[in-house]
C-alpha cells in the first residue's frame, strides 16, 4: 500500500481553503451561509439516495436531546436534526447559521442578536427569538443544567429581551466577549422550539427524524423545506451503531455501509483501496494528561515541568496515531485566533527534566497514572508516557480502569490521569477547565494572575487586545500549568468511493462533524 500523509493533507487543504470565513462575529453581518463543500472524488453533487453510516462511539444511552448529547453518535444525529445560531466551518472558524448578526456592547455585557427570517422547524413552526430564549432557558435551567450550561454561565436568563420576532438582547451577568465563540461549538447549543418534546423532536436542520432506537439504529429523511436552497442532497440517512472497529471495517469493505467513523491508524491500509477511501483530518480535539497542581506530587511546579520535558511528542504521535495529527505544546485551543504560536515547541529534554527533579528533591520519582479507554489512543499514550518517563528515572505505573470507574466518584479528583476534549476556542475552554469556578477544572488550576487576565480578556471586545491578554495567560500555562498536551489527535474516517462532498475538518469530530447536508452519493 503506498500512500503518504502528505497526500491526505493536500487533499484536505484543497477542500478547506476554499471556504470563505470573512467578518463573522463582530457584527458586520456579511450574510455568511455554509456553502456546499465539494471534493472531486465522486463527481458532481447529485440529489437523492440513502447514506448508510456505520458509527462507533454510541451506547444504549444514546439521545436525541441536543442539549445533553454526549457521544459521537449523539452528535451525528443532532448535527443533522438541529442547527445552532453559529456554527464552525471545516476550518474551525465561526460562521453564522441561524443567526444573522451578533453584536456586543462596549463592555461585552449585552449582546444584540438578530436571527434569519423565513426559517421553519420540521413541524412548520417559524423560528423566532422566542425559541432562542426558550433554548437558553433550558440550557441554563438550574435544576437540570445542560452540557452547555458551564460554558454559557455568564448569560443572565432573566435579562433576555425580545425586541421583535427576529431580534433580541442577551444580557450577561458578567462580561462575556466570547459569546460568539462559545455558541459555535458544535452540538451544545442547537436551537429547539418553544415546548420542545424529545420524544417528537423537531429542529430546523436539513434532516427530519424518521425513527430512533438507542444504541442500535436511527433513520433521518430529507427536510424538503430546508432553508438553504438545494440542500441537502440525500433523501435519507441511516445511522447504525457499531461497537467494534472490526465489524465497522468489514461492513465498509462488504459494501454494507457508505461511511464509518473513528478508525484507528492500524486499519488505514486495510481500508484504502480501489473503491474505499480514508479521510484523515487534523482534529482540534485534545487528549491531555492531567496533573493536579493543588496537592500531592505535582503541586511542585518543577515536577510538573519535568513531566512535560520527558515527553517525546513526535514519537508519541508516531506510536499512537502513526504520525497523523498535530504536535501539542501543552496548550489547548489550537485553531483559535487567540492561540499563542510564539511559544517555542517543547521538546524532550531528559537532562533538564532530571535536574528539575533533583532540585525538587524528587529523583527516582514514582507516580501512578490513571488511564482508561475513554478516547482513541488514551491507554496507548499512557503506556508510551511511562516508557519515556523511565529515561529520566521516573517510574510511572499505569492503572487502566474501566470507563465507568474513570468517570465515577473520582472523576475530576484523580491526581494524575487523562481526559479528552473536543475542539473549543481558547477562552471558552478556559472557562470550562482552568478557572477556579470552572466545572471541569481537573488540574485544580487556580492562578491569581491568570484569573485576572481572564477577567480582563472576557471583558475586551477588541479581538487583538483580547488575543494579547490570552497570549499572556498561555505563557503562564506553558510555564506552570497542570496539563501535558502532547498532541492533537487526528480523526480518521472511512468512506466508499461513491460518497461525495466529504471534507477533512479541523473540528475534531468525525466526517466534518457529521454534517451530511453537503454529502451526496454518485
Amino acid at each position: 500500500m503506498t500512500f503518504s500523509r502528505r497526500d491526505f493533507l493536500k487533499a484536505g487543504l484543497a477542500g478547506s481553503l476554499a471556504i470563505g470565513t470573512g467578518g463573522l462575529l463582530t457584527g458586520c453581518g456579511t450574510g455568511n451561509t455554509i456553502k456546499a463543500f465539494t471534493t472531486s472524488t465522486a463527481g458532481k453533487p447529485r440529489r437523492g439516495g440513502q447514506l448508510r453510516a456505520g458509527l462507533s462511539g454510541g451506547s444504549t444511552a444514546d439521545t436525541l436531546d441536543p442539549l445533553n448529547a454526549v457521544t459521537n453518535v449523539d452528535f451525528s444525529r443532532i448535527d443533522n436534526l438541529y442547527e445552532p445560531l453559529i456554527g464552525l466551518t471545516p476550518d474551525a472558524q465561526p460562521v453564522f447559521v441561524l443567526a444573522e448578526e451578533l453584536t456586543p456592547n462596549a463592555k461585552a455585557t449585552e449582546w444584540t442578536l438578530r436571527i434569519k427570517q423565513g426559517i421553519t422547524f420540521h413541524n412548520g413552526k417559524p423560528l423566532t427569538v422566542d425559541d432562542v430564549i426558550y433554548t437558553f432557558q433550558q440550557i441554563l435551567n438550574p435544576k437540570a443544567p445542560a452540557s452547555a450550561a458551564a460554558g454559557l454561565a455568564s448569560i443572565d436568563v432573566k435579562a433576555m429581551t425580545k425586541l421583535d420576532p427576529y431580534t433580541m438582547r442577551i444580557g450577561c451577568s458578567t462580561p462575556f466577549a466570547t459569546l460568539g465563540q462559545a455558541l459555535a461549538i458544535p452540538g451544545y447549543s442547537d436551537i429547539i422550539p418553544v415546548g420542545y418534546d424529545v420524544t417528537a423532536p423537531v429542529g430546523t436542520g436539513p434532516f427530519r427524524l424518521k425513527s430512533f432506537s438507542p444504541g442500535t439504529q436511527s433513520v433521518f429523511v430529507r427536510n424538503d423545506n430546508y432553508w438553504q436552497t438545494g440542500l441537502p442532497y440525500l433523501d435519507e440517512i441511516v445511522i447504525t451503531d457499531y461497537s467494534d472497529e472490526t465489524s465497522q471495517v468489514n461492513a465498509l469493505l462488504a459494501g454494507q455501509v457508505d461511511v464509518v467513523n473513528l478508525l484507528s491508524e492500524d486499519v488505514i491500509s486495510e481500508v484504502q483501496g480501489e473503491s474505499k477511501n480514508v479521510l484523515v483530518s487534523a482534529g482540534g480535539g485534545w487528549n491531555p494528561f492531567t496533573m493536579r497542581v493543588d496537592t500531592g506530587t505535582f503541586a511542585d511546579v518543577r515536577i510538573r515541568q519535568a513531566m512535560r520535558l520527558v515527553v517525546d511528542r513526535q514519537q508519541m504521535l508516531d506510536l499512537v496515531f502513526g504520525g497523523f495529527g498535530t504536535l501539542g505544546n501543552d496548550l489547548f485551543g489550537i485553531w483559535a485566533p487567540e492561540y499563542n504560536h510564539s511559544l517555542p515547541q517543547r521538546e524532550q529534554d531528559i537532562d533538564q527534566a532530571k535536574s528539575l527533579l533533583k532540585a525538587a528533591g524528587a529523583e527516582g520519582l514514582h507516580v501512578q497514572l490513571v488511564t482508561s479507554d475513554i478516547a482513541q489512543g488514551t491507554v496507548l499514550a499512557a503506556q508510551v508516557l511511562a516508557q519515556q518517563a523511565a529515561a529520566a528515572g521516573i517510574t510511572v505505573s499505569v492503572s487502566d480502569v474501566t470507563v465507568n470507574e474513570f468517570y465515577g466518584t473520582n472523576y475530576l479528583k484523580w491526581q494524575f490521569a487523562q481526559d479528552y476534549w473536543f475542539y473549543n476556542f481558547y477562552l471558552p475552554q478556559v472557562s470550562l477547565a482552568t478557572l477556579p469556578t470552572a466545572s471541569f477544572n481537573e488540574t485544580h488550576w487556580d492562578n491569581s494572575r491568570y484569573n485576572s487576565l481572564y477577567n480582563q480578556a472576557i471583558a475586551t471586545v477588541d479581538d487583538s487586545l483580547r488575543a494579547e491578554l490570552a497570549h499572556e495567560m498561555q505563557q503562564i500555562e506553558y510555564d506552570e500549568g497542570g496539563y501535558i498536551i502532547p498532541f492533537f489527535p487526528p480523526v480518521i474516517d472511512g468512506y466508499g468511493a461513491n460518497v461525495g462532498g466529504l471534507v477533512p475538518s479541523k473540528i475534531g469530530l468525525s466526517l466534518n462533524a457529521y454534517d451530511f447536508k453537503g454529502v451526496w452519493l454518485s
Partner: protein
Amino acid sequence: MTTATQAPERVGPPSKAARPHPIRDTLIKRSGIGILTLILVSILVFAATQILPGNAANAVLLNTATPARLHALEVQLHLNRPAVEQYWTWLIAILHGNFGTSLANGASVGTLVGGRILNSAVLVVLAGVIGTVLGVGLGVLAAARRDSLLDHVLSVGALAITALPEFVVAVILVIFFAAVVWHLFPAVSVFAPGTAPWSNPAELVLPVATLVIVIVPYVFRMMRASMIDSLESDYVQMAQLKGVPRWRILFVHALPNAIAPTIQVIGLNFLYLAGGVVVVEYMFNYPGLGQALVAAVSDRDIPQIQCIVLVLAAFYVAVNILTDVISLAVSPRRRLPRS
C-alpha cells in the same frame, strides 16, 4: 450439567393406581428448583451491579458529569436510594409483570429485551437445529462407514474445528465469504429495529454458519461413538443375521438407542449457544440479546441487565429440564422403577 432424576425406589411390580409418573415428577420438581434458582440469580446479579464501579448516571454523562448534573440525574433515576430498597422495588414490579424502564434511555425494558430475544432466538434455534441435524447425520454416516477415508476425514476435521474459538471461525468466514476474497454474504448483520431477522436471510448466513461450525463437532463425535457402540451390540448383529436391510438396522434399530447420550450433548450445545451468541453477535454487530447485555453492563443499566440475565438463566433452566425429560422419554429402561 445435570443428571437425570432417579425415579423413586420401589419394591415389587408397580400397581396401576400408584404407577409413578417420572416425567411429570421431574417436571414439577425441576420447575420449583428452577424458580428458586432464578430468584437467587437475580440477587447475585443485583449485588454484582452494586460492586461495579460507577453507576448509570456516570455512564450516561461520562465526561460531561458536573456534580450538579450528576446529582440531578441520580435523583431522577432513583440511584440515591438504598440498594435493598432498589432491589425490592424491582422484584415487586417483576412479579407484576413490569420489567421497568432502562436507566440509559428511559425506554421500556420489556419492549427492548423482547425484540432482542426474538433476534437471538432465531440465531440459536437455526444454528441449534442445523448443527444437530448435521452432527447427527455425519455421526451416523461416519459410524456406518467406520474406518473409511470419509470417517477419518470427518473425525480429524471435527477435532481441528473444536480447537478453534468462535471468533476465529467468524473472522475466517468473513474474510473468505464477505469482506476480502468473495463478496457473497453481508459481513455484518444490521436489520432495522422492528424488522424480523429473517427479512433478509442473507444476513443470517455467516452468524449461523459460525455457530453451526462450532457446535457440529461435539454432536458428531458423540453420535459417532454411541452409534458404533450400538452397531456392535448383540441385537444389531442378530438383526444382521436375520437379514434386516442395512438402512433399517441403522435408523430403526441402532439410532434410537444411540441418540440418548447425544441428547445430553445437544442440550449442552443449546446452552453453549445461549452464551456463544454474545461473541458472534458482537463480531457481526447482530442486534441480539448478547450484544444488549454487553451494552447494558457498560451502561450500568441495572433493569436491563437483570432482565437479560433472567431470560438467559431461565433458558438454561428450561433446557436442562427439557434435556432430562427427553432423555427419560427415549430411554424406557430409566422410566421403570428399580427393583
